[in-house]
């Protein structure tokens, strides 16, 4: 919110610099996002008296002698049509900064520095300025709108800086207001805080006016939707004279970027800014039926607002109607049909409270945000509604632009606008803070904040102003006290009263971290991807139409279609990461992600979905192959003390013959394999990629093993190498299985060579294993191992028709 310092000073005496005030505001919870001097781009411009002014022949220019008091006397060439000897104008001295304008002398194109120059052979030491060149509009200084020099008053002191004269030394605070303090959405609201934090008196503006005995006969207000409009005040003003507002009002409006329009409209805008209460003025000539009705719009009802836009409404939208038709979109904007015109003679002023949620919804639904709707969305209190009407009527009287009738209609739901009494324990306030704030400080602070405190023993009685709807109990009081007393009074403590608790990760969290570390140790980098993905990702991995993973939860209001589904698999995000890396020239690498997939129990959601912690690994590059990925899977298994079994599997996104399912104790928990070529091609992958996905939730919770030590064998391990010849269709796993089942003393079976070629039949291959045997309590006998081998070979022959290679 924009707050001019000069306007603030109307209500509170400020004798500190704008920068000091900024700090004070910051400390009490009003963050100043920007502090700017109104004339920040104007410097070194002084009042100059043109002593002589002679036309330069054959040009539109004049050469002037300008007296700038103690700054000197300069020859300046000037092309303006209103330059005249004996007049005072702003003089930008050499080195001054002013706005640079386009050829039309109106459009600002930047800031320029004045240099010595020569025009048509005449030296020119400076520049006489227009209002535009100083950033001053007609609303800020009379005459500044003229397309020529800005004529200064005769009594302007020669040589003085023009900035104070033109109001350019004023400052604008752009303040952000937290959602709990809608009462600060006004200059007066900010002034209240400033008065409190600077320990100064708050000077209230005048709310006085005199009513005439001219009523608006038969006028009525009915509120048909009190749940959306708890208070509606209408006041009739007659003998209206539409005209310009006085300079002081126009200037204030201009400083916050509000274009002055006419006195009546300006009063509504001024009160909005000053008090934070949106106001509206209807031209009574256009109100049919001598009535105001506040009701929900009919389905499809239309209204053209002041800005000429037509809206089709819905019963969720609140409208203000006359006896016949809608004349305003409540809390958002007035209707074009009852707009104030130059001929307006009677006005119905409106000040109302509309419910914030309803205004927010209407504003969102129609895509229309105004200063009024912004205030209502945050909340307007009824105390201010009542006061604002009085203030507007006072201004009508002060400006002399109308007569205040005795017709005043206040329709309300009985909410009080008087202060509420609240009692709190000072000890409890101090308990929240953890320090003891002296009673007199608490009293001073609460008094400065207009709470009229009375302290009796430990009991503090406050009169909470009706605009402080946020004050509920003692923690609120604690906050008021500490933000004014200063957070730097807090003494850092370290839970001296609290019980000792055990901290740290639980088992499953530790195991997950261990798994991640194991993968890092194998050269993989962890990545984190969005929890949502795109419907096209389901196509990328060629999920069959009936696949359960297509049953993804949809976001109702996604940022875009690409981010519209909750992930049911981590694979597409990983493929995307691999593709992005390759595009950036990273042609090899190892990535992994631990993230959740979201499996709904039913759609639309009626219950929490199953959020499953899932592991996805993606590796790519010349050095990688199925077995390097399998190595990573084994690292994961080892980290969690589990054993994985692998079996060929078909997955739509994996190579049909280089893919395996992963099982743990008979339960399938994932798969791994080479990314299918058609998927790789779609992603423009330049090197082969391999991907693994694993249900980590199951792994972390189902098999929770402890690290344990197995005593070393008493006897040395004996090994035998067996080169076996078998049908090509037989897998290594099958052979290992038979070997393992043949003997209970086997410690390890390790494949060390695979051969296919001339030395063995064409449909066969040879696999060579090292099998190690270890004895238990008893040592092996002389021929034990030979007997084991014999049994293994016999089983291999019988079960798989495998021969020892000769």
């Amino acid at each position, binding site marked *: 919110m924009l707050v001019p310092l000069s306007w603030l000073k109307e209500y509170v005496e400020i004798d500190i610099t704008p920068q000091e005030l900024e700090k004070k505001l910051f400390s009490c*919870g009003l963050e100043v996002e920007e502090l700017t001097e109104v004339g920040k781009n104007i410097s070194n411009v002084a009042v100059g008296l043109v002593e002589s002014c002679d036309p330069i022949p054959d040009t539109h220019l004049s050469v002037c002698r300008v007296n700038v008091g103690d700054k000197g006397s300069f020859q300046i060439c000037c092309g303006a049509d209103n330059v005249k000897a004996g007049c005072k104008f702003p003089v930008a001295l050499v080195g001054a900064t002013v706005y640079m304008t386009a050829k039309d002398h109106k459009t600002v194109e930047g800031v320029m520095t004045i240099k010595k120059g020569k025009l048509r052979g005449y030296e020119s030491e400076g520049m006489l300025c227009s209002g535009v060149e100083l950033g001053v509009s007609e609303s800020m200084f009379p005459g500044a709108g003229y397309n020529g020099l800005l004529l200064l008053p005769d009594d302007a002191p020669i040589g003085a800086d023009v900035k104070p004269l033109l109001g350019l030394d004023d400052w604008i605070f752009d303040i952000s207001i937290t*959602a*709990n*303090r*809608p009462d600060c959405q006004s200059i007066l609201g900010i002034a209240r805080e400033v008065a409190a934090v600077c320990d100064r008196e708050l000077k209230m503006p005048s709310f006085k006016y005199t009513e005439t005995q001219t009523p608006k006969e038969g006028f009525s207000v009915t509120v048909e939707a009190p749940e959306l409009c708890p208070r509606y005040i209408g006041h009739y003003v007659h003998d209206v004279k539409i005209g310009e507002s006085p300079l002081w009002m126009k200037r204030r409006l201009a400083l916050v970027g509000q274009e002055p329009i006419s006195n009546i409209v300006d009063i509504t805008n001024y009160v909005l800014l000053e008090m934070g209460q949106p106001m509206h003025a209807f031209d009574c000539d256009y109100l049919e039926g001598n009535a105001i009705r506040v009701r929900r719009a009919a389905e499809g009802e239309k209204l053209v607002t002041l800005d000429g836009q037509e809206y089709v409404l819905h019963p969720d939208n609140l409208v203000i109607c006359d006896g016949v038709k809608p004349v305003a979109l409540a809390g958002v904007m007035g209707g074009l049909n009852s707009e104030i015109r130059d001929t307006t003679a009677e006005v119905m002023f409106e000040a109302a409270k509309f*419910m*914030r*949620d309803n205004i*927010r919804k209407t504003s969102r639904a129609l895509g229309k945000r105004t200063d009024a709707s912004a205030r209502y969305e945050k909340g307007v209190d009824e105390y201010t509604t009542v006061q604002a009407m009085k203030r507007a009527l006072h201004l009508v009287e002060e400006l002399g632009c109308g007569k205040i009738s005795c017709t005043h209609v206040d329709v309300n739901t009985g909410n009080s606008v008087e202060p509420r009494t609240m009692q709190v324990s000072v000890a409890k306030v101090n*308990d*929240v*803070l953890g*320090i003891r704030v002296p009673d007199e400080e608490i009293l001073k602070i609460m008094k400065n904040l207009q709470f009229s405190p009375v302290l009796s023993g430990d009991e503090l009685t406050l009169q909470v102003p009706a605009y402080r709807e946020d004050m509920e109990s003692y*923690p*609120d009081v*604690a906050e008021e006290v*500490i*933000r004014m007393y200063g*957070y730097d009074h*807090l*003494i*850092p*403590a*370290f*839970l*001296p*009263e*609290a*019980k000792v*608790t*055990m*901290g*740290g*990760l*639980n088992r499953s969290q530790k195991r997950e*971290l261990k798994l991640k*570390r194991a993968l*890092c*140790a*194998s*050269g993989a*980098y*962890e*990545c*984190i991807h*969005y*929890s949502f993905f795109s419907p096209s990702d389901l196509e990328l991995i060629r999920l069959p139409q009936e696949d359960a993973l297509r049953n993804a939860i*949809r*976001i*109702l*209001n996604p*940022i875009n279609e690409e981010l519209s589904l909750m992930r049911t698999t981590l694979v597409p995000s990983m493929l995307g990461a691999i593709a992005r890396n390759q595009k*950036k020239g*990273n042609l090899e690498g190892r990535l992994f992600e631990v993230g959740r997939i*979201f499996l709904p129990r039913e759609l*639309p*959601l*009626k219950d*929490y*979905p199953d959020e499953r912690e899932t592991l996805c690994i993606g590796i790519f590059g010349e050095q990688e192959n199925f077995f390097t990925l399998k190595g990573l899977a084994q690292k994961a298994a080892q980290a969690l003390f589990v054993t994985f079994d692998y079996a060929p599997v078909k997955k739509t996104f994996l190579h049909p013959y280089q893919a395996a399912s992963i099982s743990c104790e008979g339960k399938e928990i994932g798969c791994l394999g080479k990314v299918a070529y058609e998927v790789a091609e779609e992603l423009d992958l330049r090197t082969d990629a391999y991907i693994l996905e694993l249900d980590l939730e199951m792994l972390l919770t189902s098999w929770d093993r402890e690290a344990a030590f197995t005593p070393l064998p008493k006897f040395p391990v004996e090994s035998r190498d067996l080169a076996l010849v078998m049908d090509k269709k037989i897998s290594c796993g099958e052979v290992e299985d038979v070997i393992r089942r043949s003997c209970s003393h086997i410690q390890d079976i390790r494949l060390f060579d695979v051969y296919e070629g001339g030395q063995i039949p064409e449909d066969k291959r040879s696999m060579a294993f090292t099998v190690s045997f270890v004895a238990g309590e008893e040592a092996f006998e002389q021929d034990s191992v030979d007997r084991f081998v014999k049994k293994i070979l016999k089983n291999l022959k019988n079960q798989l028709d495998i021969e020892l290679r000769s």
Partner: protein
Amino acid sequence: MNDRLTTIRQEILDGIEQHAGTRASAFELRKQFLDSKTGKIGQLMKEMKSIAPEERAGFGKSVNELKEWAQQKFVELDEKLKARELERRYESEKIDVTMPEKGTETGNLHPITQMRNQLIDVFSGMGFEVYEGTEIETDYYNFTALNTPKDHPARDMQDTFYLSPEFLLRTQTSAGQIHVMESKKPPIKILSPGKVFRSDDDATHSPMFTQMEGLVVDKKITLCDLKGMLDMFVRKIYGEGTTTRLRPSYFPFTEPSVEVDVSCFECGGRGCKLCKGTGWIEILGAGIVNRKVLANCGIDPDEYSGLAFGIGIERTAMLKYGINNIKLLFESDLRVLRQINDN
């Protein structure tokens, strides 16, 4: 006879000089003289019988002296040759140590995980457990129970992704607080890290980011405890000498609420580009748990009080490591992931 001894002595010296370039040839040479059966010195011993008895003792002594001298010579020779051979072996194995290394790369945890682990370390030491809630939450747990009913303007502070009228993507890890407080009695000290979601996607916002919520509920918890705890936290993460500044703010679920700034660890508070000249950097929001929130969870607000704080992990990591764009954290670019190694 002595002439022969002198000759042998000379032969040995010549032999060492001329025929003993390697340890093998030196061994052969030694054999010629010192082999117990065939060596020339051994032969002399055998001639002892033919020496006149009165000269025998003298001769024997001379031969022994020669033998000892020769043995010594050959030991010295061997040592010299051994040293020379070792030197040659070393020379033959000379490498260019400036050539690149071999061996597997070690990966890194994600910078967010690294930061998260560091934060967990600090707070675990203070007795905080870690609770990870669900990413999909109900409107009740994400808002209503946190004192943000449906018409509350604070809902506008966060643009929410909805999955159904009831379910949404949590906008804050505070949602997890409620589950914990409903199921656990004080004393409670939990840390709740996790992904949160807001419908914001521009240069400085990501629709998904990571928060870590901290909650303490016990008897007599005060703002001073919050200040002390956060001071400790910033010292551990940003270094000794850093401190915090609290200033008023607003969150529906805390009262009083504060915004917490940390003294700029780049310039020590003098003012620099990082802190935009203010000497302070905004790092988190915190406050004393709103009484209504405690009551919503069945905890008596007259008996217990609590403090809560919420840290943006991306922001903390970006500040600590100087990462300039939040989007980089979710693109999995190895050039980024390789850089942050603070595991």
